[in-house]
């Protein structure tokens, strides 16, 4: 994959999980006890051998810059190639929304790259993919554009592209839907194509008034280009709503999901914090949980995910909850069906309870 330029699309479209995205792009939402959503696609690219990766900077870039920094943790702090940022460019008298204007503003940069291919991915999908298979498929099919999809089980709400794919793998229809039904082929937001095709598409689409790579660049051009799509049949999640976030988190408490995402040959990298192993104390009780390093557990934890550095006081009971970094749950607190963002303090003996499947969300830095 030496001849591929990777591009991670950061859209900052935070409409559906607003509570977690007040201070960060959706792609930077914490997930799975120690990661951010964007870690999954970045790690997949790096593990596939892509060594030149551009990360789009949203208008409020701080969450991206703070997490990805020099790219060192993904082995992308290099003298040649490695990580680069695509700044969001303020075009004067520009009122368009969408990702297309950012790609367009950086078109000259892509054009000057010496890579033959570009792989564009979305920063908000959770998967662990080796893109080498995608490249083989792309070349075998002699495709102009190759996408990836996952056959959804159950119903899924949120804005997603859904594909119709024929027996040969050719995409016969691509449409944006707000509900994905059981058995639908959901796009993973992955596009592989020659750089020349990519630049042609973004130039054309933007100069004819387009806003969005998917809608104006791909869907509207479905007749013009040979678009193929390849299935990925391992675990995938797309966090497009608070419900989806909670459901995907709970998915991780199934051993097979945890093992397939994290324990295969390709690790997921993230910012390293050098936390100590979890310290379980005398009275701790833990069942069906994911617990990240740096936690100290005196109380009981069930069906829950604890991020790095969470303190669980004596007599605390946590159930069906997601507790993010550095939360401090004081002695006797009761937490059920709750998502706590970072640095939340729950005082002694306080109760917090959401409804099953409708978790209560506590925003960052709050003391209760």
């Amino acid at each position, binding site marked *: 994959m030496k001849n591929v330029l990777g591009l991670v699309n950061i859209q900052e479209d935070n409409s559906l999980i607003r509570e977690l995205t007040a201070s960060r792009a959706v792609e930077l939402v914490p997930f799975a006890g*120690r990661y951010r959503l964007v870690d999954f696609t970045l790690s997949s690219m790096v593990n596939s051998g892509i060594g030149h990766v551009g990360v789009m900077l949203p208008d409020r870039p701080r969450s991206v810059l703070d997490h990805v920094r020099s790219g060192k943790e993904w082995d992308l702090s290099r003298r040649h190639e490695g990580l680069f940022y695509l700044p969001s460019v303020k075009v004067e008298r520009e009122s368009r929304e969408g990702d297309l204007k950012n790609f367009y503003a950086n078109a000259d940069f892509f054009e000057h790259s010496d890579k033959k291919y570009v792989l564009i991915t979305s920063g908000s999908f959770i998967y662990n993919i080796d893109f080498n298979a995608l490249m083989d498929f792309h070349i075998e099919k002699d495709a102009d554009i190759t996408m990836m999809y996952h056959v959804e089980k159950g119903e899924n709400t949120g804005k997603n592209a859904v594909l119709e794919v024929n027996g040969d793998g050719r995409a016969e229809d691509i449409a944006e839907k707000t509900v994905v039904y059981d058995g639908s082929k959901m796009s993973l937001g992955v596009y592989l194509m020659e750089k020349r095709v990519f630049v042609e598409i973004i130039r054309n689409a933007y100069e004819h008034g387009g806003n969005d790579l998917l809608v104006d660049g791909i869907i509207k051009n479905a007749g013009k280009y040979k678009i193929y799509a390849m299935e990925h049949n391992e675990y995938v999640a797309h966090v497009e709503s608070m419900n989806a976030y909670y459901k995907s988190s709970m998915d991780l408490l199934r051993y097979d999901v945890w093992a397939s995402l*994290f324990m295969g040959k390709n690790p997921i990298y993230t910012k390293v914090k050098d936390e*100590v*192993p979890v310290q*379980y104390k005398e009275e701790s009780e833990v*069942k069906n949980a*994911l617990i990240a*390093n740096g936690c100290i557990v005196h109380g009981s*934890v069930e069906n829950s995910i604890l991020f790095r550095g969470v303190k669980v006081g004596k007599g605390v009971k946590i159930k069906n909850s997601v507790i993010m970094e550095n939360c401090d749950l004081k002695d006797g607190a009761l937490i059920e069906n709750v998502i706590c963002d970072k640095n939340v303090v729950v005082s002694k003996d306080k109760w917090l309870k959401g409804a099953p499947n409708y978790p209560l969300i506590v925003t960052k830095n709050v003391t209760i």
Partner: protein
Amino acid sequence: MRKTECLAMILAGGQGSRLGALTKKIAKPAVPFGGKYRIIDFPLSNCANSGITKVGVLTQYKPLELHNYLATGAAWDLDVRDGGVFILPPYAREKGADWYRGTADAIYQNLNFIELADPEYVLILSGDHIYTMDYAWMLNAHKENKADATIGVIEVPWEEAPRFGIMNTDEDGRIESFEEKPKEPKSNKASMGIYIFTKDFLKKYLEEDAVLEDSEHDFGKNIIPKMLNDGARMFSYAFEGYWKDVGTIESLWQANMDLLQEETPFDLQGKWKIYSSNPSMPPHFVGADASIKKSMISEGSMIEGEVTNSVIFPGVRVGKGAKVTNAVVMPMTQIGAGATVDYAIVAQDCIIKDNVTVKGEPGAIKVVPEGETVA
């Protein structure tokens, strides 16, 4: 070019024979400790946190595995310009290769490395100790005392003093005499095996000692007594806090158990972080029937059985109904369903089959060596 003010040299020991089965495949400094660390993470992190960025690691055995672990030194943030971690095995020279004949000889054989770095001071550390210490303070004391040598000391219980090298000092901390394992100690200040020397002073003594045929080329036995004899300005530097030699199976096990106390021996959560090469693993998975009490468990593990009073490293699997107590289980080891592990150290990549029992007892810790299958 920024000058290296203080160069650290870590004596990473011989074959570590007292750790027996644990050092069959890896050098002693690479032995896992504390749920995610290796022993050498402690002196290396202390160096990094003290602002010392150039470190030589002197080892006789298995330098390649250690090299692979230390890599560029990036994990300890030592991959800086004019810094870095250098593995220094006894390699062939014009006159042929020599084994390191003693701690002083190991440094002597690497004088050319020291000259290349050209520091003003040389900090000599041991690779067998678990502790957190800011060497910058000790270096300040060395400079303020205009000392030739400064030796880190710790007060030990009087009854244990006969097991250590004991420093007798005046009220300013200047060392008046030194006794190796005295039967009737005059002080309880034990040498920690941490030395700061002014470079030129050290070089002179090492060169003199190297040609002596009856010398054991050891800092404690030969170099320090000779310096004292010559009236050199030698000061003690008192350290207070947790400091533990992990050179034996029993002490390694005990030091792991120390971490499980209600009050951990040093502030694990504090600013003085212990860095380590990170395995990129997810939070550990706890199954529906698991029970975990008074234990430390690291990333990437999967616990379905009972773990009590134990230290579990990354990637370990504890099967259903297994009972792990008073144990240290090193990376990637699998403990089968229904197995029992008690008072034991199980090294890396072992497989304890279902329903098997591995049982030691206090004072006789059972060891399963790296890569073994116990059926």
